[in-house]
């Protein structure tokens, strides 16, 4: 497999590895160690990499840092497997009737690892500090829904105010968040790392705290040996319900996933984020029932660049036809070794509001109907398309397969348009210089269907790289944002998703899966729909 070979060479474990692939159930293997004794203080080791930035919650967005931050902190809320909100450090997070003012009540008795109590102030101060551009926190735009954000974080120049007017401390365990406009699903955003609290000492020396983070989570920080390992240990004073069943985690730094995989095979590391692409075909034989396959809320699409002459005034029938010309199931079987699911809509699984078959017949392979639709729509301008992708991740194989499928079914010429790497690829997309069609992938920010819709296909939003615009969709999205409850909003977004059939801003291809494995040292390990390992449940065997 050419893609696999090049992946081995070129790809550093990508920060946001969209090259995720998946595999069917386990096949026999080495069981029999289920009766082994559990060591409550056993350490789990995890193949990670050197975090890009210091370990400050609001400055961490890449995977290597996030996984450490998430072990050290517990936020206000989290979500379950179906994408419903669960309360963690918060007793409750309730909106007013317009979803504009959110009241957060904290659970009492929570402490930071240094013994300081977690209060409303710990949250409000942390957010205000991180919103200020002078503090250089990469995630600061996450606060932009809050009233007064533009004063603290103007488009250009210095902060005009130190505090966002929308954040008010009511008492030690209550504070309110006033939004610029009502968002029914705002609680979902609070899951993300920039909304974690910070102890008061942090603001005096953010740099030192970034090297030795102090959080409020199930694990506390022990040591960070740069480019080698980060060690965290169980927090015995943890007030949350997800207490760690092991003694701690050793995040080992790897620069190549193939090296981590070799170590995993020999039980030198207990798990890794995702198996290397080159091993997707073998990892089930290698690990037997220790192979892990989990749904991962991410979707792959190919999107037309609507700012090009080719797609500017295209009849949607052409796009529908192209979509029907792609044999998703066969490509999933041949290229991905059956480790991906064909997409049936624009929203990934494991997300609130996910519905099956939103795309309907247009995402099912039907070469005859495809050719007919394209003809009816006046054909593809130039009768030729190209699909842009980044060659530093294993995309080539499936792009070629998709192209072949399209050409075979519809006689439309299709060529690959490889760009050296992800940075270059993104730049072309940002500058709106894509020639025809580009590959796109989206991993959830939060498990709510609006995140896959409004944030990608709304007119003028940052994630909308293809210059797509549909007033009808915008109207539906706006209605969904104005809904009274989360459930209602998710339902309305479902309507908006169905509307995409009539415009096809992106052609859905596959849903991703997290593919990993665990060593013989641990009993089991699970990943959530964001692809993050759930460490607290891991039980380590006695040596």
């Amino acid at each position: 497999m050419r893609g696999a070979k090049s992946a081995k060479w070129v790809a550093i474990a990508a920060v946001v590895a969209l090259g995720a692939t998946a595999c069917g159930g386990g096949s026999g293997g080495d069981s029999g160690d289920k009766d082994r004794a559990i060591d409550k203080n056993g350490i789990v080791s995890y193949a990670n990499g050197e975090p890009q930035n210091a370990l400050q919650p609001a400055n961490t967005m890449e995977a290597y840092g996030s996984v450490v931050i998430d072990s050290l902190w517990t936020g206000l809320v989290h979500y379950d497997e179906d994408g419903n909100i669960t309360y963690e450090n918060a007793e409750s997070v309730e909106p007013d009737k317009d979803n504009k003012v959110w009241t957060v009540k904290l659970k009492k008795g929570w402490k930071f690892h240094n013994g300081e109590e977690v209060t409303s102030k710990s949250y409000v101060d942390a957010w205000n500090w991180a919103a200020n551009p002078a503090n250089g926190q990469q995630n600061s735009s996450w606060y932009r829904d809050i009233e007064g954000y533009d004063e603290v974080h103007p488009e250009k120049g210095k902060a005009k105010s130190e505090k966002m007017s929308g954040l008010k401390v009511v008492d030690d365990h209550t504070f309110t968040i006033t939004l610029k406009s009502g968002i029914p699903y705002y609680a979902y955003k609070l899951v993300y790392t920039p909304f974690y609290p910070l102890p008061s000492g942090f603001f005096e020396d953010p740099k030192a705290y970034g090297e030795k983070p102090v959080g409020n989570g199930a694990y506390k920080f022990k040591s960070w040996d740069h480019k080698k390992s980060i060690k965290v240990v169980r927090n015995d004073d943890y007030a949350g319900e997800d207490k760690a069943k092991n003694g701690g985690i050793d995040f080992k730094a790897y620069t190549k996933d193939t090296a981590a995989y070799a170590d995993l095979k020999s039980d030198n590391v207990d798990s890794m984020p995702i198996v290397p692409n080159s091993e997707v075909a073998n990892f089930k034989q290698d690990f037997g029932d220790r192979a892990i396959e989990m749904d991962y809320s991410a979707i792959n699409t190919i999107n037309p660049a609507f700012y090009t002459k080719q797609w500017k005034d295209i009849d949607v029938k052409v796009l529908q036809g192209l979509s029907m010309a792609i044999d998703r199931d066969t490509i999933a079987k041949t290229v991905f070794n059956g480790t991906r699911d064909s997409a049936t809509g624009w929203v990934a699984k494991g997300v609130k509001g996910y519905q099956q078959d939103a795309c309907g017949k247009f995402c099912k392979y039907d070469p005859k109907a495809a050719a007919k639709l394209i003809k009816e729509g006046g054909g593809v301008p130039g009768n030729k398309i190209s699909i842009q992708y980044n060659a530093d991740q294993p995309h080539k194989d499936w792009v070629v397969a998709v192209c072949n499928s399209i050409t075979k079914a519809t006689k439309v010429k299709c060529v690959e348009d490889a760009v050296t790497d992800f940075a270059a690829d993104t730049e072309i997309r940002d500058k709106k210089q894509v020639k025809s069609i580009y590959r796109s992938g989206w991993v959830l920010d939060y498990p709510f269907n609006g995140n896959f819709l409004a944030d990608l296909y709304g007119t003028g939003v940052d994630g909308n790289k293809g210059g797509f615009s549909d007033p009808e969709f915008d109207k539906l999205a706006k209605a969904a944002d104005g809904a009274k409850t989360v459930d209602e909003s998710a339902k309305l977004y479902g309507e908006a998703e169905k509307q995409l059939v009539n415009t096809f801003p992106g052609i859905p291809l596959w849903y991703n899966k997290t593919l990993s494995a665990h060593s013989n040292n641990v009993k089991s390990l699970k990943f959530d729909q964001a692809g993050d390992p759930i460490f607290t449940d891991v039980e380590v065997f006695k040596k």
Partner: protein
Amino acid sequence: MGRYVARRLLQMIPVFIGTTLLIFLMVNVLPGDPVAALWGDKPPDPAQVAQIKHDRGLDLPLWQQYLHYMWGLLQGDFGNTIAGNRPILDEITAALPVSARLAAMAWTFELVVGIALGVIAGIRRGRIIDNSVTLFTLLVISVPIFVFGLLFQLLFGNQLGWVTPTVQNSEDMAQLLMPALVLGLVGLAYVARLTRTSIAENIKADYMRTAVAKGLPRRRIVSRHLLRNSLIPVVTYLGTDIGTLMGGAVVTEGIFNVTGVGNLLFQALARREGAVIVGIVTVMVLVYLLASLLVDLLYAVLDPRIRYA
């Protein structure tokens, strides 16, 4: 001799400026914005991008950036990384000893084993041992290095369990042994071949016949007369190989998870960390230049006929 060394050292200055400038410019024409890349596939925040660019001096015109960089370099300041804002000097000084150790081990390996094999094969030309060495070196040269790396890893690490499949601690010499062997393998083959050819040629030389006729012990003939005169091409190769082993071990370092210079350079390229790339290349250029100077000086030691005025 002294003047020669001084002149060579002075020649390094234009080479040094030229390479840094060239690399600096080349990194800058690479597509992709390193600051925006910090956000991955999420939309970057314009205010933060501007702030970071300003902090790292990336908003200045290119020539100013270069002068800035060179001025800092002269004072021993390599600048800071774009991602993480860490001093680049720290990154390089952390990776350099690892690479130096790995390179030294690989180099010693190819020096000792390579020359030994070459001498034996050269003396016993045409015999079975010579043919075996030729066959072995042919195999090593023709198979890409990553094949050996992965093979050794699978065999000794995963199957036999003699060593851990990857290096757990890059500062531990014992653990670096396997990557060093893999890294030195190709060089070893070249050294063995060069030595063999050279020995095979010189063994027929007149001075050899004289030495034998004088009744010198065989040991002395081989080590003092034959080997010494045959080493010049080998020394040339070994000298330039130091630099290759230091900076060019990207593949081997990747397979065995060694946090050396090669790895650092590769990641810097992927992240478009221009200052890091130039920094490493600068150090590497210095290593190369010093190594080649050393080689040239060694010529005079090996062959007294060569003199430097």
